């Protein structure tokens, strides 16, 4: 494009060819990076399944509901670990979600700005604690405390419930679930806080104008509005809990059985891989451990993708109704 009078401020004219080449190169490199990362994701999924394949072929799907894990007899089954993973994560979720919603409410509705900011930072810092440090604290401080105070208390007052029956133990499903709770709280509360702060002011103001108390406005307006987001937050927290291996393996006690009570040791998918994979003494043991890894990968992906889908549908619905 030539100008009629040369503009002294315009940049030196660039050859059209030059523009295309630079742009193509830059875009190409960026695209290669993006495809490369996608390829890494694909390879991870592929490699885990490929390494586990001999065990998958050998045991088939019944591996998932087989309860034994006895390397000496070549008996391998995932049920104990799936149970442990699900129980610890679900308990963590049941404890963390109401807490997180309450914390989010505090930060968005109750606390004045000057108080909210530092407290929000402190809740975020909970997420910054490395899991190995939480595990260290769990082994040396929290586990013994649970065994000498919490579990006897639960046993005395609620011992009729099978989950609180039996003898206290320093390492077990309960301390592991509680440590996971500490890890999930910052994630779910941060998302809930985002959600509550985005509830349109006019909706809650309208409710207040009609005579509701602040809590009723929250209960009837904010929470239903944010409900899909909250469920996505719950799923993301669940995904985090599923994948945590290090802190769990430090406090769960490497048990081999499924117990009704939460006190005795158990094990989860990630935790068993962390404790046994490096020393696996036979090929089939290593492959079975990777089969556990494949199961873990699948449930992690399913939870995460579900959270994504909920968020997407939620956003689409919002856009449709707002637009």
């Amino acid at each position, binding site marked *: 494009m030539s100008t009629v009078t040369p503009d002294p401020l315009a940049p030196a004219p660039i050859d059209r060819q030059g523009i295309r080449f630079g742009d193509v190169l830059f875009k190409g490199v960026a695209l290669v990076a993006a495809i490369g990362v996608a390829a890494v994701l694909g390879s991870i999924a592929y490699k885990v399944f490929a390494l586990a394949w001999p065990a998958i072929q050998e045991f088939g799907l019944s591996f998932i509901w087989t309860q034994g894990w006895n390397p000496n007899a070549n008996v391998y089954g995932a049920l104990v670990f799936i149970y442990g993973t699900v129980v610890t994560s679900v308990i963590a979720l049941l404890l963390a979600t109401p807490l997180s919603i309450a914390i989010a409410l505090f930060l968005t509705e109750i606390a004045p700005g000057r108080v909210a900011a530092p407290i929000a930072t402190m809740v975020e810092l909970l997420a910054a604690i490395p899991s190995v440090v939480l595990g260290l604290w769990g082994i040396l401080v929290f586990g013994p405390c649970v065994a000498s105070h919490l579990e006897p208390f639960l046993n005395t007052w609620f011992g009729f419930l099978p989950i609180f029956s039996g003898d206290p133990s320093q390492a077990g499903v309960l301390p592991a679930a509680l440590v996971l709770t500490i890890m999930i709280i910052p994630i779910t509360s941060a998302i809930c806080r985002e959600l509550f702060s985005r509830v349109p002011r006019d909706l809650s103001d309208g409710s207040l104008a009609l005579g509701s108390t602040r809590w009723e406005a929250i209960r009837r307006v904010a929470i239903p509005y944010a409900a899909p987001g909250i469920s996505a937050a719950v799923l993301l927290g669940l995904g985090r809990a599923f994948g945590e291996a290090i802190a769990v393996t430090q406090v769960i006690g*490497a048990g081999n059985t499924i117990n009704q009570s939460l006190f005795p040791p158990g094990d989860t998918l990630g935790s068993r891989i962390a404790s046994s994979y490096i*020393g696996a003494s036979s090929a089939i043991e290593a492959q079975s451990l990777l089969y556990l890894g494949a199961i873990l990968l699948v449930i992690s992906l399913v939870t995460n993708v579900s959270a994504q889908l909920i968020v997407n549908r939620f956003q689409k619905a919002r856009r449709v109704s707002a637009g």
Partner: protein
Amino acid sequence: MKRALGLMVIVASLVAVAVVVGAATAAPAKNQDTSMTGAGSTFVFPLVSKWIPALGAAYGYNVSYSPIGSGGGIAAITAKTVDFGATDAPLSQDQFAACKGCVEVPWALSATAVMYNLPGLKCVLRLNGKLLADIYLGNITTWNDPRIVQNNGTCGLLDLKITPVYRSDNSGTTYNFTDYLASVSPTWKSKLGVGVNAQWPAGLGAKGSSGISGVLSKTPGAIGYADVAYALKNKIRFASMQNASGKYATPGLRGIQAAAATLPNKITSDGALSIVNPAKGNPLAYPISTFTYVVVSSGSSKAAELRKMVFWAVTQGQSYGKPLLFQPLPKQVQAFAYKQIKKI
């Protein structure tokens, strides 16, 4: 000016990426020849720790060792991640096949102590194999069970829950322990078998010999097993085990020596080195003694140094063992070791 700076940043990061990727894919430049890495058994770690500075002083060797458990040691030497692996569980046929060209040499001898945490116990606990198996099977759950009190009447055993502690990682000490339990309890043999790990029906697991010692020292009523050096170091008390002759033996040098004395005069293969639960007629023998092995890849680039190191270990190295309750290798085992070393 800004453009030049930006360009430099880009070039610098590209160069950095290239360097890192190049470092990764280039043949790993092995450090100086006198440097050797090993990994494996936590059982032998106390003794190896004493050997490392001595080897440095004697030959200038820079040896390092990671106690990750016998299972890890076997896996590491099979994957050639280390120069030598240490295991208390002898390699099986399958493992020898997988670890192409590996040579196994016995290099130390000690015992697995049965440790317990019973504060205020007035005497040394006396146990036999059957009781131990029942405890770990979950059939005996309290310390004042009549079956235990029968042998420990005056000790003051309380109504305290027994927490059996086992190794959660694949361990040669577990192999030794289960080997013993299988030889004294047919139930154990059929249900759980012998191996570097087991489907432990009761109790809780800890990683490494230090892990077991850790849990034990924090849990009253716990019972666990580890190399006797860990019991000594952490001042944890250990039990006297009744051997096949009916006598109670402790994992001291005498008991270990007596167990090793049951070996034939000539060793021909690794399988002959099991000294667990020696037969009647050896009143002093401690029934849970074991040899521990170093596994080396034959024909590696460091073969000469490895030969020297292992030879030193089975000769001069043995003198470091006594304070840690590692009994020097008997003559016939040493002779066998020499033969194996030649194959490296």
